[in-house]
């Protein structure tokens, strides 16, 4: 049982703590409280949690978190309490001195469900004052989730001092959550809480509102209207979210398929090693980052900017080599091209496996590509956003290149009428090699972007090849715009099917739909018509 003195002390420390954090600890009460953990009594433990959490002692957080993880060991005979670290080393919980070993008589301090909530709340409030914004935000969010009454004071205190806008909002939400569940909160407070949660308007707010139990009639009514408003806004947001995921997947598909739209769509060459060109681009990024890491660590943020042209050159050069050494002998024999390039894909995969090992390689995100921002109820990660932007840029550049450059003109001439182009003095074989190189180079660029969101392993390309072909075939061969529309249609359709059918079944459904679609329109969405097609 707590003595009067310690109870008062406890309040005193707590209030001090709330005004100015990290006050020097008072040795006596803190140590007394720590010793209480050894009593093996739930109410003593609860009291101890309160005191320790409010003590401002630097050991407070380690103690509470050890308690949470079952690493807080107490010896009921000596009243000594120890923290066992994850590494097996232990310290005395009261003093922080390392100890050689925890006595065998010590056992982990037990918790029940009620205590567990206190622990969660204590951890939340302990970190509410952290100097780090991220930690504070996290703490506020965890208090919001636990909505323990005991954290209310800590939250109020933190709210008074908080200057960061988003942490402040999170604290406000946490306060509302606590008040909503606090039995003795006033009706006004509760109505305000409902309004705050309604404004928050996410899944978690919805869960709190639906699970709040008995409330005064006015609150129940307000909550009901808040619930329906949140639900309808969530439905809209989930559509937006799916659309965003779809766009994001579509951009990945487009990126993987653009190169193929050139080699397959424009040249009619079935390059089954296309995925491996993507993989080579990803490994180029890896090598660039390795060099930067070891030699010029300061350039890391520019690693992708260096990797993009390099990947284009590497994959493009390999593409030209492949065209000159294999594919040019197989023009007009598409099925043989398919087999030969499949063999090539095996060779390239195995070559990369031999050079870089079979496991995933670490490719880092530069700072400008990591992190995310919130847009209403959805989270948009920077890497996905950049990939979408990058894909559209690549597409636009390619389109412009085909339309306005001499190579683009020659390319179109050769694909439309090879003999005529040759007689006009175009070196068709050079154009073939360059076109194939261009397609491969773009695949390499795609690899740079995909290295940011996918595992860089020798199998990277394999996972894209079927999808890429589906996109090109679906969009209509020989039509870049078709590829664009095809990629985004498939991406969005996939993401809208996923919540209904599940990820795998959604993918199967898409494959089946494409198969059926090809039956209906064998030449894709944007097919060329007329006699020339048959020739």
């Amino acid at each position, binding site marked *: 049982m707590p003595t009067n003195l310690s109870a008062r002390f406890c309040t005193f420390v707590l209030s001090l703590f709330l005004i100015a954090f990290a006050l020097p600890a008072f040795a006596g009460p803190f140590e007394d409280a720590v010793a209480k953990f050894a009593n093996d009594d739930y109410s003593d433990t609860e009291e101890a949690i309160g005191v320790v959490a409010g003590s401002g002692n630097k050991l407070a957080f380690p103690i509470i978190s050890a308690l949470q993880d079952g690493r807080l060991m107490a010896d009921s005979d000596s009243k000594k309490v120890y923290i066992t670290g994850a590494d097996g080393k232990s310290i005395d919980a009261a003093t922080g001195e390392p100890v050689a070993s925890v006595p065998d008589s010590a056992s982990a301090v037990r918790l029940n469900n009620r205590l567990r909530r206190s622990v969660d709340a204590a951890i939340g409030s302990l970190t509410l004052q952290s100097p780090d914004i991220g930690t504070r935000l996290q703490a506020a969010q965890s208090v919001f989730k636990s909505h323990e009454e005991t954290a209310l004071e800590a939250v109020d205190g933190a709210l008074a001092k908080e200057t960061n806008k988003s942490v402040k909002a999170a604290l406000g939400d946490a306060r509302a959550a606590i008040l909503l569940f606090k039995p003795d909160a006033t009706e006004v407070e509760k109505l305000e809480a409902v309004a705050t949660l309604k404004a928050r308007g996410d899944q978690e707010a919805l869960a709190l509102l639906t699970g709040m139990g008995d409330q005064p009639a006015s609150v129940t009514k307000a909550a009901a209207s808040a619930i329906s408003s949140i639900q309808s806004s969530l439905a809209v947001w989930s559509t937006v979210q799916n659309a965003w995921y779809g766009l994001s997947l579509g951009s990945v598909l487009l990126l993987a398929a653009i190169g193929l739209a050139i080699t397959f769509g424009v040249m009619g060459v079935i390059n089954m090693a296309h995925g491996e060109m993507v993989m080579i681009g990803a490994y180029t990024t890896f090598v660039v980052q390795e060099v930067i890491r070891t030699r010029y660590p300061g350039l890391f943020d520019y690693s992708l900017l260096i990797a993009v042209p390099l990947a284009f050159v590497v994959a493009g050069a390999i593409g030209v080599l492949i065209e000159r050494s294999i594919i040019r002998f197989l023009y007009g024999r598409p099925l043989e091209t398919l087999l030969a390039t499949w063999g090539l894909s095996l060779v390239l995969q195995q070559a990369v496996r031999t050079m870089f090992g079979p496991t995933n390689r670490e490719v880092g995100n530069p700072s400008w590509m990591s992190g995310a921002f919130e847009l209403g109820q959805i989270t948009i990660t920077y890497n996905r956003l950049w990939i979408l932007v990058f894909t559209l840029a690549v597409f636009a550049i390619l389109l412009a290149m085909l339309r306005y450059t001499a190579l683009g003109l020659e390319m179109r001439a050769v694909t439309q009428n090879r003999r005529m182009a040759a007689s006009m003095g175009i070196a068709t074989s050079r154009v073939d090699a360059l076109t194939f190189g261009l397609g491969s180079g773009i695949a390499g660029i795609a690899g740079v972007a995909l290295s940011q969101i996918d595992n860089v392993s020798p199998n990277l390309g394999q996972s894209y090849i079927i999808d890429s072909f589906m996109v090109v075939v679906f969009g209509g061969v020989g039509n870049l715009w078709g590829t664009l529309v095809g990629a985004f249609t498939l991406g969005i359709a996939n993401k809208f099917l996923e919540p209904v059918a599940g990820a795998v079944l959604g993918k199967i459904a898409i494959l089946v739909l494409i198969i059926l679609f090809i039956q209906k329109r064998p030449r894709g969405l944007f097919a*060329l*018509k*007329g*006699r020339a097609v048959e020739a």
Partner: protein
Amino acid sequence: MNVMDTRATSALLYLDGVHVSFDGFHAINNLSLTLAPGEMRAIIGPNGAGKTTMMDIITGKTKPDEGTVLFDGVTDLTRLDETRIAELGIGRKFQKPTVFESQTVQDNLLLALNVDHSVRGTLFWRGSKAESERIDKVLETIRLTDARNRLAGSLSHGQKQWLEIGMLLAQDPKLLLVDEPVAGMTDVETHLTAELLKEINKTHTVMVVEHDMTFVRELGVKVTCLHEGTVLAEGTIDQVSSNDRVVEVYLGR
């Protein structure tokens, strides 16, 4: 035959108001044409006049956007596919000789014979005396008896043209569509081909597309001149070749 005959039922082939466009390009434009049973007609016209597209429409390869195509006065060809149209009795020789190159001359003719063309029929097929006699006869007509066991791919260009005509004979259709039968032939071969077609015309209705005016003249049949997908002139070769508009089209404006 009366060209002004408007009763569709009496014509073997009847095209009226046919339109086809590919991505905005009007390949066939309000084309109307009739072919009486037993007639032989030569179709001439500059490149891009729509001659081959017209054959594509008749044989079901291309579907017209609008218009009527009737066979035998009753069958709407626009609703049928190539196989069904071939079964009805319309045979076609392509502009570029298309024979089955990896099979023998004899097998090419065997495949063309108008016997049971179903999966089951061919799977359980056993050659009959009548069939081999017919093949022998066709081989003789197209002068390829000696080459019967050679692969069709090893024939000369002219021989392939003849083999393809032979396949038409074996198919024995009511209507033969012959696209540029003498392209790449020597003068002698051209003359022989004209004789052969005249012979065939004794028992079949024939439509010949040809550029070679000497050949058309030799056929001595009614000529239809197409231009930009529509009929420009119709009549004997002399009438047509003296037509101002035809001259204009051929010589350019």
